[in-house]
């Protein structure tokens, strides 16, 4: 009898926890998507750089029932990766003059949050609902979107951050002629982030809060490292070999309690080990929030968030700036092509608009200085960005060694897109795992 009652109580608690957990998801969501739209207005100057100029063709006939399906891996209001995609979706709708309702969104599509849902099912649902193009917006969705693309060969789909449409890539899927890829050249943004960190650090101890380990994440860690070393040496006047740089991987793009390391916990460990700038590579803002708490307590701790242009708003007093994605311009191009019936799948690795890094109509990646970035550091950073833009500074040129001492780029050798995309190891000097043990 006693056991029964105790167990019933336990079940009751579980039930409450279920409800609380379900409700809890809303906590972060008080800001609506519209808040994010503070980006600079279109300057309207198309650039000659890797950036792609986009303006909605005014004479285009947009059918009222044109719908876009967008599948997000995290919550649509995560102030990170997923929100950046979600807002790109809204941007597309706005440019096409369609109501928001024409954007079909399903967020939190991952096995932990939706164990009963598969990506092909979601795609099928969206198509059933009338979606004309599908955006699967996570690296994690490879298997599912490839399967779905095979099932619905007539529906154009985009797998963001993937390489299935890259003829020269390692995972080219020749038969999936309706599946394209879009990615931003974030390694530039990450190099800028590394520079800002190096210009700010007082302890010379930089850390990187990594998500999971793959080619992309290794590429981005290396870029932060290269940017940090360059700026530490050339603007801060330090010896780059004195710079300590450690990465820790939590296991996924965001925290899933029980399945990943807790990013807040990892950040605490970084701080305890003497790091004063934490660069975040995950989709959510735990590192910045922690740094903000430290700043509020009077400690000189900073962070660089990632993914989403308004990410600094979580704790501006600790934010050195944010490298972020503008998926909008490329997504709009896809949508327009689909409407025109002229879409052909492609592997797009879109770069920044060096003319205006924050032009929401032209740049695929961007950077905002944070409130916490000191004025002289901001000056040096601007110089660095200008150097990157002009090509004067090229960080991805040899000699560069891999973590295990092998040569990645020989003396004077410039990294190809292939070498950059498939980054197989962290660079020499970085502390942390290059691959799963």
């Amino acid at each position, binding site marked *: 009898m006693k*056991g029964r009652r*105790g*167990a*019933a109580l*336990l*079940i*009751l608690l*579980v*039930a*409450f926890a*279920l*409800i609380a*957990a*379900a*409700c*809890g*998801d*809303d906590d972060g*969501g008080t800001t609506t998507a519209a808040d994010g739209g503070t980006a600079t207005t279109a300057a309207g100057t198309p650039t000659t750089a890797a950036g792609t100029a986009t303006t909605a063709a005014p004479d285009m006939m947009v059918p009222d029932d044109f719908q876009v399906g967008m599948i997000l891996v995290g919550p649509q209001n995560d102030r990170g990766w997923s929100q950046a995609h979600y807002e790109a979706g809204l941007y597309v709708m706005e440019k096409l003059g369609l109501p928001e*309702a024409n954007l*079909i*969104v*399903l*967020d*939190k599509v*991952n*096995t*932990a949050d*939706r*164990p*009963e*849902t*598969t990506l*092909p*099912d*979601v795609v*099928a*649902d*969206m198509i*059933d*609902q009338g979606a004309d193009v599908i955006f699967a917006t996570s690296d*994690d969705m490879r*298997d599912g979107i490839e399967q779905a693309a095979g*099932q619905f060969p007539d529906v154009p789909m985009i797998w963001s951050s993937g390489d299935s449409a890259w003829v020269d890539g390692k995972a080219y899927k020749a038969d999936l002629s309706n599946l394209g890829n879009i990615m931003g050249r974030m390694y530039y943004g990450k190099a800028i982030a590394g520079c800002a960190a190096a210009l700010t650090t007082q302890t010379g101890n930089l850390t990187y809060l990594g*998500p*999971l*380990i*793959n*080619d992309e994440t290794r590429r981005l860690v290396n870029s932060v490292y290269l940017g940090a070393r360059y700026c530490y040496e050339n603007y801060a006047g330090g010896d780059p070999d004195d710079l300590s740089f450690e990465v820790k*991987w939590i*296991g*996924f793009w965001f925290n*899933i309690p*029980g*399945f*990943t390391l807790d990013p807040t916990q990892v950040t605490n460990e970084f701080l305890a080990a003497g790091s004063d700038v934490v660069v975040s590579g995950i989709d959510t803002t735990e590192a910045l929030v922690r740094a903000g708490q430290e700043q509020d307590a009077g400690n000189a701790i900073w962070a660089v968030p990632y993914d989403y242009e308004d990410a600094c708003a979580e704790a501006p007093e600790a934010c050195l700036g944010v490298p972020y994605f503008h998926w909008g311009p490329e997504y709009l191009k896809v949508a327009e092509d689909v409407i025109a019936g002229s879409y052909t799948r492609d592997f797009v690795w879109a770069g920044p608009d060096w003319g205006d890094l924050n032009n929401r109509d032209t740049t695929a990646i961007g950077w905002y200085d944070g409130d916490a970035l000191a004025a002289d550091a901001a000056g040096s950073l601007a110089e660095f960005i200008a150097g990157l833009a002009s090509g004067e500074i090229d960080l991805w040129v040899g000699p560069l060694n891999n973590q295990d001492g092998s040569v990645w780029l020989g003396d004077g050798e410039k990294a190809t897109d292939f070498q950059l995309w498939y980054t*197989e190891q962290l660079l020499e000097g970085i502390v942390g*795992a290059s*691959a*799963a043990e």
Partner: protein
Amino acid sequence: MNDLVRRLRVPVVSVVLALAATWLLLVVVDAPPLDALWQIWNGSLGRLSKIPDTLIAWVPLTLAAAGLIVTFQAGMWNIGVEGQIVMGAIGAAFVVRELSGPPAVVIVAAFVVGALFGIFWALIPGYLRTRFGVHEIFSGVALVFVASAIAVYLIIGPWSRTGVASTSGTDLFEERYWLPTVGADEYSWLAILVAVAAVVAIAVLMRGTRYGLRLKAVGKNHHSAFLMGIPTNAYMLSAFAMCGALAGIAGTVQALGFHHKLVPSISGNYGFLAILVVLLAGFRALWTAPIALFFAAMLVGSTQLSLRLGIDSSLAGVIQGMLVLFILVVGAWQAQRTRRLARRAETATTAGGG
């Protein structure tokens, strides 16, 4: 007839109350209630194309529930069933990754090893309970965490994708080892068959056999059962083993028939949910099948809320939670009522008969 009405009262009343509360909630968040319920229906059982999706959730839920019928009959709360599903999936994944041979052989081996892993994981709380009197709820909960940790370790460690350490899962298994399907996107008939067979077998075992009868005695009063000469510890352990086997099979189905790889959350909370299914079914095996179907439909159909109505998908979680609460509250009310009636009846007979 009267009996049927009494049996149906708890589930029906709780579902109706939960629906009413859901209705209210939907009105409060300014969503059209009828449309929302329609979408849930339409996204699960109301459309032919959605039925396989619903079965995807139904199969593991039903398997776990069938297993829990056995442990509940033995009077125990095998809350660790969630972890037993995970272990089953790990066992099956191990077979499929390491073994190669004719698909039929490998798949059967995966089921066997998956079931064995589940049994092993279930016998731990069983042993702790029978040998040391450690309550199975506590050891079970702990073992759920351990099983998850093992799965995560394998996924980002030894079984990680080449050059990748992501908790999003291992490489896909070889396609020939996936559970057989009829159409391209249909769910595996084998998985459905296994679940149906499990429910029927457990129903027969519990109601028609001496084993089931004795297990019931052990569950209701293990002291009396022991005095009758029933080896109570052996029966309790066998119940854990049986539940573990079915949970392990559920894990195997999840790995080979659904995800086609090992993912950290492969148990999908179906174990915990199955406890509620069994409670709602009043511990009767055959009832778990339709009730699990209802839960599966809620789970799968609620995706439509965010897809089509733009309602935050966490609302579906709230609805499920409410349903659970109402089941518990109504169930407790019913139990109290039954006790009161029984007491009254007892007084009447003793007064009358002596």
